[in-house]
């Protein structure tokens, strides 16, 4: 189990995160939603062990996280900048696996190809990142994360800079992947609809100095659909609730 315990982070005199405590149960899909600049990336970097917290700590199975643990993979917000431009799609996905002793060459190849097939990129395997569209680059980054076979998948606004159609496709792709590989997912977004559509649970963050405003259980069926789910009264209720909360307005009706 992954736990964030009274975590705070300052940048110089700026208090980016005041205090956040939240736990992530195995196999659950948690969306973290909050306004731009509220410290979502900072929180994910602290969780992943890339950034030391100023206060509090992060524990994984009871042990404090001080550097990126083998159990976690992170899909960065700037996906285009996290792909190595001198490596093909195949090599980008295979790069984190190069020290895996339990995989022989054939198994490694299969794992890479299977992960790319899971995101629908089998045809682009020999291309370089700069030969791909934004959505394809993002899917490469996702394939790299799932090939790493993490227990916990951290995603930082992964669909923020792709068009609406691609975004809907990628959302459903993530749900499919999540059903296929059992993983704890921590999904950061500033899109309220997206957070309710994807999550089993939504953690709402306030503006800086950041705290958890609310944790919401999403009572929607596990199977989600872009059209029917988004018409579901429960979906509509939750999204206006989160919206009102973030905008600091009293709920109407």
């Amino acid at each position: 189990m992954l736990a964030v315990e009274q975590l705070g982070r300052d940048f110089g005199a700026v208090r980016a995160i005041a205090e956040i405590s939240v736990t992530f149960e195995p196999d659950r899909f948690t969306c973290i939603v909050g306004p731009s600049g509220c410290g979502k990336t900072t929180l994910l970097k602290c969780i992943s062990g890339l950034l030391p917290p100023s206060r509090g700590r992060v524990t994984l199975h009871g042990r404090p996280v001080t550097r990126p643990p083998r159990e976690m993979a992170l899909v960065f917000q700037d996906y285009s900048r996290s792909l190595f431009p001198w490596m093909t799609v195949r090599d980008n996905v295979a790069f984190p696996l190069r020290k895996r002793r339990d995989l022989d060459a054939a198994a490694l190849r299969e794992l890479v190809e299977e992960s790319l097939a899971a995101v629908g990129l089998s045809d682009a395997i020999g291309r370089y990142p700069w030969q791909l569209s934004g959505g394809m680059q993002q899917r490469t980054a996702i394939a790299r994360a799932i090939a790493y076979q993490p227990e916990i998948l951290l995603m930082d606004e992964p669909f923020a800079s792709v068009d609406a159609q691609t975004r809907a496709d990628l959302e459903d792709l993530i749900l499919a992947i999540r059903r296929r590989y059992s993983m704890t997912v921590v999904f950061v977004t500033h899109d309220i609809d997206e957070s309710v559509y994807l999550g089993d649970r939504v953690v709402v963050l306030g503006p800086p100095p950041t705290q958890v405003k609310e944790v919401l259980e999403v009572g929607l069926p596990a199977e989600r659909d872009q059209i029917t789910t988004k018409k579901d009264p429960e979906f509509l209720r939750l999204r206006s609730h989160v919206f009102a909360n973030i905008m600091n307005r009293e709920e109407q009706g």
Partner: protein
Amino acid sequence: MKRNGRTVLIALEIATPFVLVTLYALWAAPRDSFFFPPLGEILAALRADWFGERILSDIWPSIRRILLGFSLSAILAVGLGFALGLSRRARIATAPLVEFFRALPPPALLPLTILVLGVGDVAKVLLIALVCLFPILQNTIAGITGIDPTLRETARMYGITRRGELLHVVLPGALPAIFAGLRTSLSLAVIMMVISEFVAASNGIGFGIWQAKRLFDIPLMWSGIIILGILGYILNMALLQIESRVLAWHRGARKAAE
């Protein structure tokens, strides 16, 4: 359209030297000037001397000096550049020194190296290496510090070892800048080779040109200058060839970004 443009460019590149040489031949032939001898005499000297015994006695020693000095500085500068590029402290501490040497006109070091190291081959190679060091060093540092932090964070996130990060992330990321430094230094290497051979040498292309001037063998002098030009051109082409192989991804990425 694009293809055509390329063909025209290549044709121009080949045609221009021919036109210039022809113009010179036409201009010099009737004059019989002492300082600007007819093309035939220059070509005769080129064939008889430079492509004769001087290939071994002068051209090869010069090439050897360039290649040894340049390779030595490339190895040292990239190694040192890594150390400085990865440590902010070391970088700040050495910045004034690097800037100073980079700003210094390279021939200014010649008297010093003659005094300290003498006039032998070793001294020439070391002088070339010293002068070539700073552009490569500076570019390596810039290349390393310019790598997108997200790339290095990605490597850390996925448990890449320090060694793996240096070899597969930092080095390729810095390589475009390193090559820019290598190109600058290669032309400096040719310059320093010539100058050091002018001042004190018993062989080499620079020595040959200087000697020809002293003996008033003007066609020989001119043909030496032509040899130098050709040598510089070939060396530069060779480096560009290597670069386009190694950095194919970089060219593609830059084109894609346009």
